[in-house]
């Protein structure tokens, strides 16, 4: 009997081109648009990120280092400590090192660096060709060494100016500066504790190579990200579609016909649940298959991917019966309209379907309490190469959500005919 009902549902769905377009075509279109539009930002390399940076040094660094060394000699520190610090200082020239980084192999194709005299600062501020100006004030290196090695105030600040529309370039430079500030802090700590600065340099060189890939796992491309994002968002609409079909059956008394045929309301309930689950699974697999063939979105662990998809489809089945039960109870479709119009959008936003919410961020933690957000986190984790076992928390949440929805749906479902 349930099979008969699912078959009927499949026929209805496949004969409704508008519904099919929304459920299958829309995610594909959105993946194409978002993957291409935002792909360059996320993937790196594809967007033309070549920009010109001006560096303005208000005082020569060598002079500042010499001044710091002279100060050390007169500081009254024990000579052994002074000697160790002098060795460390030889390898700590923050501005020069920063400039070397900007001209390194990794960044040289992206950044055109020009050192500019301080008296031309106002001039280059009006020069549209410079995306970013990095300004090292007087005594920057001296204060940097004093702060880092002797814990003295003030902590120096480099100024980064970026032109309107060059926010990405400004961001890149700022991140590089931040990264090197952290590196120098570690270096100074090691230096003060008598560790060979060469080792430090090697370590920092090694560290630099890892910077672009924060995680040790595979990076996720924009197309893969948005494939997942659009699938977990659009499959939620399927739950509303299933509930709409069910409400129509109630409204035109087809449900009553079933009840009069002595079909248990639980048979009907389970048929809605299984239809939701099955069609959510098929919808997800269709879009993922499309993404595989046309966008090259491949899964490192297919079994793990499939398990997540089944769990998420179960949650969609749960939402289908919950929406069906509430609309039957209320005698109107307001709940499905509210769900597809508002709840899906909020869930998609929290779950990270529209843009990456940031690993470990508050938004991501909140998003993980939505079925789509939890599924998205699990999918991304698998895509990065992590094991399914690392996602048990997400799977447990999705399962709990599904069973909660089914339980509330069962309690709410009318006990006799639709109109009782």
């Amino acid at each position: 009997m349930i099979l008969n009902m699912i078959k009927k549902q499949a026929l209805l769905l496949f004969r409704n081109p508008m519904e099919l377009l929304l459920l299958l075509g829309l995610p594909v279109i959105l993946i194409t648009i978002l993957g291409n539009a935002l792909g360059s930002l996320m993937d790196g390399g594809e967007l033309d990120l070549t920009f010109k940076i001006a560096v303005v040094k208000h005082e020569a660094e060598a002079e500042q280092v010499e001044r710091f060394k002279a100060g050390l000699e007169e500081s009254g520190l024990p000579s052994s400590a002074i000697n160790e610090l002098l060795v460390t200082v030889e390898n700590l020239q923050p501005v020069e090192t920063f400039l070397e980084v900007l001209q390194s192999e990794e960044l040289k194709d992206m950044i055109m660096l020009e050192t500019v005299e301080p008296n031309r600062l106002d001039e280059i501020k009006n020069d549209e060709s410079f995306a970013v100006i990095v300004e090292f004030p007087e005594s920057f290196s001296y204060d940097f060494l004093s702060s880092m090695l002797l814990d003295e105030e003030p902590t120096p600040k480099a100024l980064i100016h970026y032109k309107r529309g060059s926010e990405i370039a400004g961001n890149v430079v700022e991140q590089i500066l931040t990264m090197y500030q952290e590196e120098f802090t570690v270096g100074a700590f090691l230096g003060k504790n008598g560790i060979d600065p060469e080792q430090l340099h090697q370590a920092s060189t090694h560290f630099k190579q890892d910077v672009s890939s924060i995680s040790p796992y595979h990076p996720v491309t924009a197309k893969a990200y948005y494939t997942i994002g659009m699938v977990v968002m659009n499959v939620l609409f399927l739950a509303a579609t299933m509930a709409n079909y069910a409400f129509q059956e109630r409204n035109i008394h087809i449900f009553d016909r079933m009840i009069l045929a002595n079909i248990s309301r639980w048979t009907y309930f389970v048929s809605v649940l299984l239809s939701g689950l099955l069609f959510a699974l098929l919808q997800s697999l269709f879009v993922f298959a499309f993404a595989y063939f046309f966008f090259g979105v491949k899964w490192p662990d297919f079994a793990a991917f499939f398990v997540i998809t089944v769990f998420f489809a179960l949650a969609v089945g749960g939402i289908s019966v919950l929406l069906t039960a509430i609309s039957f109870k209320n005698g109107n479709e307001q709940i499905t309209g509210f769900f597809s119009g508002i709840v899906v959008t909020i869930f998609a936003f929290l779950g990270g379907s529209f843009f990456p919410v940031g690993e470990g961020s508050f938004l991501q933690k909140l998003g993980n309490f939505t079925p789509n957000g939890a599924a998205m986190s699990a999918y991304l984790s698998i895509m990065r190469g992590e094991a399914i076992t690392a996602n048990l928390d997400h799977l447990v949440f999705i399962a709990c959500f599904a069973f909660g929805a089914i339980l509330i749906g069962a309690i709410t479902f009318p006990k006799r005919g639709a109109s009782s």
Partner: protein
Amino acid sequence: MTLDSSHPLDARLNWSHGGGNMIELIDITKKYKQTEAVKNFSMYIGRGEIVGLLGPNGAGKSTVISILSSLIEPTSGDVKFLNESIIKNPQPLRKIIGIVPQEIALYEDLSAEENMKFFGRIYHLKGAVLQKKIDEVLQQIGLMDRKKDLVKTFSGGMKRRLNIGVAMLHDPEILVMDEPTVGIDPQSRNYILQTVKRLNEERGMTVLYTSHYMEEVEYLCDRIYIMDQGNLIASGSKEEIKQILASENTILLKADYWNDEFLEKLQGIPQVQQMQVDEKEVTLVVSKEINIFSEVAHLADETNIQLRSVHIKQVTLEDVFLHLTGRALRD
């Protein structure tokens, strides 16, 4: 036989003449939050009868049908099928009842045959038996040549016929039809009426037929219940109900137009018990002993109304309803 809802016992006394009752509704009341949809309603349906349930829209007919078919529980009262209450055990009734809802309870995106297959299977029919039954019913409702077509391509009348056909798939003993001819062309309407008549005559099918078209109920039904605003206002055979107006005449006046002065003066004649005004017709219910022809003619002359005809009508159920409620069935 007139029944007043405040005297439900009268109705029950009347049942004893029925004999072999299949279904009985006893003092049914259905209350929703704000409204009382059905008030102390009682009726019976004997085996092989065609029983009409007549009343305007909103009278409570559909609620009565839902209660009778076990889809909703009454607030008070009982429903019996072969002397057993169905309130707690509706299954025996459900096996032998076929419902034709007022709505087209079909899938528009499925073909006629696919719809029948789906609904046949929910009655546990399958394989060759189901196919044979589908063909038989499609033949009966005249849709055999359209069985592969999607329902959404059907006319309103064809949809109505299929709506009936689906309810007949499991060979029900009793067919409950809720306004089955609403919104269709006269040809389809006749086809449906003849089909119902044939099912009753050839197969002895018991039918409960609700409508607000009195002529349909008059044509089909052996006995009639008339409802208004949740109340049973009359019941009995056609002749019994028409006897309610035995002491009155229904007079039909025709003219090209009416004016307010004429209508006001007409209404003012003390012997006029009811008056119904349409664009070119006025229906008057007056006491049989009184001759008001001359008075009407005089009024028309006085108010410059050119009467085209004045005659005494055969009493119809519509007239009875007008007499009992002061309103027309289709108001």
